[in-house]
């Protein structure tokens, strides 16, 4: 127990000592962290700050940014049905991408970690290999496979099942499938880490106490992996919300998503301030996802 009276006499001296050491420790840590901090500052904090600043400015008739503070861009965003619809669609797509990638990723990760297949290394290479292919190449791949005249539809047509049977290009479903496949390797790797960290003894203990494999999974493995699944979901959702190449190449003009919208505002409409405002909205939605995850899992820690 602390005794405030007995402590009183030595407090000043120990306080000074503490400051001395704290100061020293601070210096060392600062020295170690500063390169990373600087990098983050100039590659991330500064651009975001500029973007945030610009989003509250407006442009004059000739397109030059004027230093007048305004909420106009945000008012326009939230009163324009098209912007709102696009945001809603992006959130919906990101939600389903997350659902799909996490579900499939969990099954794959569970299989790799707990069933210890004999070809483990081979499967791992299969998981990681797609990461080496860029998103643009991947989207073209999907196009060739699933496009209206792609392999699958041609095959179905040859079988006499009609023309353009599967609608993939320029559909939300197409984006969701392509995007989930893009994020799947990442999700599998994250979830493998999560599942590997679960001591197999917990599962054995559950079985020794009378739980069948299914009940051991439901009562022990799943709950123990849940916070990791939450973290993977947030990462997946955030990345899916920012989907760009796949949205452009598979969604095209027909299925507009929010990240290409930012790009179009800036590049085609030369509306810098509006583009910045849309980007800020995107950022806020992502942060909300992180905060929700944090609240959901903090109470359990």
């Amino acid at each position, binding site marked *: 127990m602390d005794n405030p009276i007995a402590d009183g006499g030595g407090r000043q001296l120990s306080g000074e000592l503490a400051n001395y050491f704290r100061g020293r420790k601070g210096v060392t840590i600062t020295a170690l962290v500063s390169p990373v901090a600087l990098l983050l500052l100039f590659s991330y904090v500064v651009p975001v700050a500029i973007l945030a600043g610009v989003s509250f400015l407006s442009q004059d008739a000739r397109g030059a940014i004027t230093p007048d503070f305004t909420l106009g861009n945000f008012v326009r965003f939230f009163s324009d049905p098209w912007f709102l619809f696009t945001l809603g669609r992006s959130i919906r797509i990101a939600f389903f991408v997350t659902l799909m990638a996490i579900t499939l990723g969990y099954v794959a990760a569970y299989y790799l970690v707990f069933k210890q297949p004999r070809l483990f290394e081979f499967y791992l290479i299969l998981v990681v290999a797609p990461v080496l292919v860029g998103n643009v190449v991947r989207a073209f791949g999907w196009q060739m496979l699933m496009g209206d005249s792609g392999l699958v539809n041609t095959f179905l047509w040859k079988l006499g099942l009609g023309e353009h049977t599967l609608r993939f290009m320029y559909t939300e479903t197409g984006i969701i499938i392509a995007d989930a496949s893009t994020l799947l390797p990442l999700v599998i790797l994250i979830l493998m880490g999560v599942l590997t960290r679960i001591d197999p003894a917990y599962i054995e*203990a559950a079985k020794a106490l009378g739980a069948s494999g299914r009940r*051991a999974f439901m009562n022990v493995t799943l709950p123990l992996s849940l916070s990791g699944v939450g973290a993977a979901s947030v990462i997946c959702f955030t990345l899916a919300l920012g989907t760009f190449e796949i949205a452009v190449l598979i969604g095209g003009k027909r299925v507009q998503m929010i990240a290409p919208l930012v790009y179009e505002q800036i590049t085609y409409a030369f509306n810098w301030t509006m583009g910045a405002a849309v980007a800020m909205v995107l950022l806020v939605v992502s942060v909300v996802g992180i905060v929700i995850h944090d609240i959901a899992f903090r109470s359990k820690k």
Partner: protein
Amino acid sequence: MRDVVSIRLEDIVKRFGDVKAVNHVALTFDPGKLYVLLGPSGCGKTTTLRMISGLEELTSGSIYIGGEDVTNVPVHERDLGFVFQQYALFPHMSVENNVAFGLRMRRYPSTEIDTRVKASLGLVQLSGLERRRIRQLSGGQQQRVALARALVTEPRALLLDEPLSNLDKNLRDDMRGQIRDIQKRLGITTIMVTHDQTEALSMADEIVVMNNGLVEQVGTPEDIYRRPSSLFTAHFVGAANIIEGIANGNGSMVDSAGVNYRLPADRKSLSGKVAMMIRPSDIQILDKDLVTDGLDGTVLSSMYFGATRKVIVRLEGGRDLSIDTNERETRGIADGDIVKLYYETDSSHVIRIPDDHG
């Protein structure tokens, strides 16, 4: 009331690749007794216990519990209590829910679960900690939760894998008593793994000494300590002075230095290669002027342990014997002292060494 069952291992084998972890073990565990599997690291104790529990599949052989062949019965249907070395308490559940887990899996009604969990926590003296998280418990408390969790379903037998190895010494001594106490009170067939000989000697009804995937000897603690059947057991359980020699069939043996030793009464007729074991605590150090009988020697070194003193004496002929004495009896002993050693012939034990040995 729970059944009190026997467990029988019929020639069980477990191979991991090229490693024969358990190599043709046959054992019967009688109902209601506490057995300790004792042996050095890697000798197959855990593997044996896991095969009994069903957590590990057998390479060959069969296991019977209460007369029923359970070799192909999965873990969750064997109805055994298992306490893991690291306890494996579920970190996402309270103490209460950990203990209730086995009952929930057996779909007990919730009122019965409540009473049983209470009784079980009472048994291990943890009443009042129901709502704690596992992380908020000390090592000893976690150990007892693990025990309560394993016992609450009234399993047919209790299996413990080094249950005390993560506790500090005082707590370990205390828990030894508690586990033994509970085991006796419930009269449950229990198999415990340890590599700590003191633990084995103090807790077991019977000790199974294992080495290299094989059973070396099965017997009461006294059997194992006093009458080891092999040099391995003699060395592994307790400290031992081992003197190898040739027995001549007329009640004595001669060691390589030509010194004669009398054989204990029950081994007088032995002949051939033998090893004599004398426990360090069975040898007395006497003043050379007081006795004429006994072995002559010189004190080489001594080490003080408080209640006891360990003395190394070099015999004429160059053999060193280690002796544990009451510290009072050897007060003032100094290196270089000339002494007489005395032990009762019948406190020694002779092990026959097979001819193909070495």
